[in-house]
């Protein structure tokens, strides 16, 4: 199950752990990504709170957590190869895995069709 936030994060849930990244739309808006800072395991995240940093050539942007929970793992591969976020944003370019504290928070996120509609409205 993949869900999307209005801040252009995606979360894919297996059991009670969600994998979080930024959407293809987000990476295309940012352009070439040159630096990513992911949260360390054990860090507590709040829904909508700052969780990671992504930097393009031009500027730094915050990545927010779509859910409340505790970080299980940050994607270490992004330190050496931040361009993975451009080439495979919904796959190998994931940012962090989070143990979801309140599964009910997932209900407030958009499904794929809903997010596609949301992005269309931004043009």
């Amino acid at each position, binding site marked *: 199950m993949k869900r999307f936030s209005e801040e252009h994060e995606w979360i894919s849930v297996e059991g009670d752990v969600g994998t979080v990244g930024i959407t293809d739309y987000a990476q295309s808006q940012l352009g*070439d990504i040159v630096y990513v800072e992911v949260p360390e395991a054990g860090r507590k995240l709040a829904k909508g709170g700052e969780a990671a940093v992504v930097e393009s050539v031009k500027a730094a942007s915050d990545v927010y957590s779509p859910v409340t929970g505790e970080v299980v793992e940050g994607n270490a591969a992004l330190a050496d190869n931040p361009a993975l976020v451009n080439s495979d944003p919904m796959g190998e370019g994931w940012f962090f895995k989070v143990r979801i504290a309140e599964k009910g928070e997932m209900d407030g996120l958009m499904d794929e069709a809903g997010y596609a509609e949301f992005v269309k409205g931004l043009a």
Partner: protein
Amino acid sequence: MSEPNADQTLLKTPLHALHVELGAKMVPFAGYDMPVQYPGGILAEHQHTRTAAGLFDVSHMGQCWIEGPEAADIVERLTPGDIKALEPGRQRYTQFTTASGGIYDDLMVTNAGSRLVLVVNAACKQDDFARLQEAMTGNTAMRILEGQGLLALQGPQAVAALERVVPGVSALKFMTGDRFSWQGADLYITRSGYTGEDGCEISVPAEKTEALARALLAQPEVKPVGLGARDSLRLEAGLCLYGHDIDTTTSPIEAGLLWSIPKHRRNVGGFPGDTVIVRQIASGPPRRRVGILPEGRAPAREGSEIVDASGAKIGVVTSGGFSPSLGRPIAMGYVDRAHAEIGAKIGLVVRGKPLPAEIVKMPFVKKSYHKD
């Protein structure tokens, strides 16, 4: 993910429709709707300029002529530059200085024979033109080239490509200019730019700007390049961006621009802020603009504090980003004189943490100008 918001009533350059046609991402810049990048992206555009030729639309910049017997005297009254001694066809970089020794704007001045040609920054041009207008005397007058196009073609293959379109241009040396004709239009071309590469800037009437840009883009070496790569290219070249690395609070001496002030003007003065600037030349400025190389991969952006080993603030980053050529972050900023030594270890505060960095010589990437 956070993202900036934008949109007011924006001005358009003569190339606006072409930028949109080429798929550029447009952003507001100095009141204009400008291309920050094309579909290829900033990194590719940057590398293309370093290896072939990039075409930049810089028509948002201000262009004016100063014509009359006192043209050079007037510009010297407003800048510490070497203008009266400027020979026909030669170009100089200088600054409009403030009464307290700061910088209102930086500019290029070319002696085009019958007139001086000035190119100033887009964000400052209204104030610059007003200041110039007020300084006019006798039979000397300013003419603003409203809407005139300005193209920059930059890179090791730029002049070869331009030569095919405008024959004769390859005879120009670095920091010289001349008049050329293209399809019945008058061009003024200087061999200069803002990337550290060889190349030219081409002043072209508005109605011919798009046709000339298309003729240049039809050359196999040439690709369009947006403001994003323009910024990373000039940062690698160690060049100042007005409003960031220099402004009314920084003197040309602090900024490391003493080379643009000729000896006789250092002695005699006669420009706004001369007392402060001459004193700083003699006894050293309180702080200096330096190049900074962060050790890790995290870029330190404009506004990041610079600290010493004990964590005390010694300066601030004024430009910082990622260097595509070096594959790592670079920055420039101002550091208190006592700490501004090449090789000094410093810290850059990024998201609350001091990251290790070193003060280094600029440019970060060797310049490749076509000098004699």
